Structures are given as structure tokens and as C-alpha cells.
């Protein structure tokens, strides 16, 4: 699939795929593994959680079966700080993730509202600044607010991940104009639409806006057939990127026939 030789770079890695795929919510681990494989994604998001009481009987290996599957895929791992509500919590989680997963990449999520899981811009910027100083490559989950994007860029983020819409909503791109403004303002930053994608066409649209990639989870994992949907997103993202690179035609306010008019049989003019 990725045979158009269209590589790109993010976080010091050269990749073919522009799909960042989540590892949660699949019907079962085998389904997750197959979906990730067929998607050809080269970045998978993961997380950290407490071992629940009783897991000690498993000799501390509660998460090992999942982690062994992810390791066997041999792709880049992007740990997240999901569930954190302060910069302090997110920084600690990032530090723990760096040790467990052996990567300085961190998907920074600091949630500011439990209803819509909107990121807290103030705590996100604060955490990003500290984590970058500690050597992390920060992938900040943010809204489509241009000023917040500026603040994140000011503290050294090379990557921005504005939401399409609320996490897990599947509503697509709520404010494509805002996303376009961020793209225009930051032509050199890597921009990923993260969250809210529901259909392959949403991902295509994000790519047509000139975004460098799309991060999604629920749209694949909660599909009727996650493996088939993972395949669909692979094509959708490639199509959107190729469309962006090809240059979309200018919209026109009038109809214009594509078939030559000269030589039209039975020609007549509307009155």
C-alpha cells in the first residue's frame, strides 16, 4: 500500500504511514493485533495503569501479554498520559512511561473537563515546557485554538495534535477552518488531527487540509469489523494526503462542462 515512496519524519523517525493508531477498545487482543497490522500504521498509542489488586498472584505480569503483542509488532510506541488532570500527574506519568516503554515520545493529555474530555490548555502548556526540558518529544493533545497552539509552539513543541472533535465522539472535524488556520500558522510543525474521527472520510478531510497525520482509535476499534475499517483508514489517509499534494482545484460559482462543447451533436442553447 505504502508504495508511493512518500516518507515523512516525526519525532526523529522516518515513516511511510501517516496513521497513528490506538490499541484500546478492540473486541479482543487478536483483533487489535490484526487491525494494527493491516492498517500498516507505524505508531501505536499505549498507556499505563495500576495493576489491580490480586494481580500480584500473576507475579506482576498483568500487562505483559498486551505489551508482548505490541512489542512483537515492531513499530513505534507512543505512550499517553490519559486520565491525568494536572501537569504534575502528566509529568510523573510521562517519566514512568519513558522507563517502561523505553521511548522519549509522549502523547501529552491533560484533561480539563470530565464531560467532554477537553484538554486543559494551561496545564498542558505547563507540562509540555517541563517535559521538553527533560528531553521528551511531546505530542500534545490540544483543542483547535490557535493561541493555545502558539503557546505550545513557544515552549518548544515540534508537534501539535489538535482535536477534530471530542474524544470518542466520531463526529469528525468540528471546525475545519480552525484546523486550517493552525496549518497556515505553523507550516513547519508536524500537525496531527487527534480525536473525534469517526469515518474514513473524516480522516481524508484532515489530510486534505494539509495535516501530516491522523491519530484515531475508536473509529477502528468500535467499527462492526475493526480489521476492515483499519484497512479503510489506511486507504483514506493515503488518498487525502495524495489529494493534498496533488493540489485541489479551485471551487467555482458556476457550472463548467468537462466534456468538450465543440462538436456537440444536436447543439442548442438554453433560452
Amino acid at each position: 500500500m505504502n508504495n508511493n515512496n512518500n516518507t515523512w519524519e516525526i519525532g526523529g523517525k522516518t515513516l511511510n504511514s501517516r496513521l497513528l493508531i490506538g490499541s484500546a477498545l478492540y473486541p479482543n487482543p487478536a483483533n487489535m493485533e490484526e487491525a494494527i497490522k493491516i492498517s500498516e500504521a507505524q505508531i501505536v498509542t499505549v498507556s499505563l495503569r495500576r495493576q489491580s489488586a490480586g494481580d500480584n498472584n500473576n507475579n506482576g505480569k498483568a500487562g505483559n501479554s498486551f505489551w508482548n503483542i505490541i512489542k512483537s509488532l515492531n513499530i513505534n510506541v507512543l505512550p499517553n498520559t490519559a486520565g491525568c488532570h494536572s501537569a504534575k500527574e502528566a509529568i510523573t506519568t510521562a517519566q514512568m512511561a519513558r522507563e517502561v516503554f523505553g521511548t522519549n515520545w509522549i502523547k501529552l493529555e491533560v484533561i480539563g473537563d470530565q464531560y467532554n474530555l477537553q484538554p486543559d490548555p494551561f496545564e498542558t502548556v505547563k507540562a509540555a515546557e517541563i517535559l521538553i526540558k527533560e528531553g521528551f518529544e511531546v505530542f500534545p493533545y490540544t483543542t483547535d485554538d490557535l493561541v493555545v497552539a502558539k503557546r505550545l509552539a513557544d515552549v518548544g513543541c515540534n508537534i501539535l495534535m489538535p482535536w477534530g472533535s471530542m474524544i470518542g465522539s466520531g463526529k469528525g472535524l468540528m471546525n475545519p477552518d480552525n484546523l486550517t488556520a493552525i496549518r497556515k500558522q505553523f507550516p513547519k510543525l508536524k500537525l496531527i488531527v487527534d480525536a473525534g474521527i469517526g469515518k474514513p472520510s473524516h480522516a481524508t478531510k484532515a489530510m486534505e487540509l494539509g495535516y501530516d497525520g491522523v491519530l484515531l482509535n475508536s473509529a477502528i476499534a468500535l467499527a462492526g469489523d475493526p480489521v476492515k475499517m483499519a484497512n479503510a483508514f489506511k486507504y483514506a489517509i493515503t488518498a487525502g494526503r495524495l489529494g493534498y499534494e496533488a493540489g485541489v482545484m479551485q471551487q467555482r460559482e458556476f457550472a463548467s462542462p468537462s466534456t468538450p462543447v465543440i462538436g456537440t451533436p444536436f447543439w442548442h442553447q438554453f433560452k
Partner: protein
Amino acid sequence: MITISVNGEIKEVKEGLNVKELIVALNYTTQGFAVAVNTTFVAIKSYETTIIENGDTIDILTPVQGG
């Protein structure tokens, strides 16, 4: 004995344990997880110099699925 919280569960452990000794006492392996004490990360290299105190809150996190 001292009383601590491990992943939200109250436990009594021997006084004076460091983190390395604590995770052995709790029957954790030494790989595939990370530790925080009172919401501050404790790196592996600091396990032996970090002493668990009465009332400490310990978080031991392992990889899980994430989006």
C-alpha cells in the same frame, strides 16, 4: 510495621524497606512496570535509596491499551 497504600490498597509492610525490597515483598517482578511514591516518579536506579515511610502512597503502573 508501617501502613502504606499500594495502587489504592492499604497494606502493612516491614519498616525501613526501600523500593526494591518493597516490590520483592509485594511479589512484583523487576521489569515491565514503573513506580511512583507520593505521585513522584522513582527511577530504577533510585530504588535502593528510596525508603518507604509510614503513610506513603505507592503507584505501580504497567502497560495497558491506550488511545
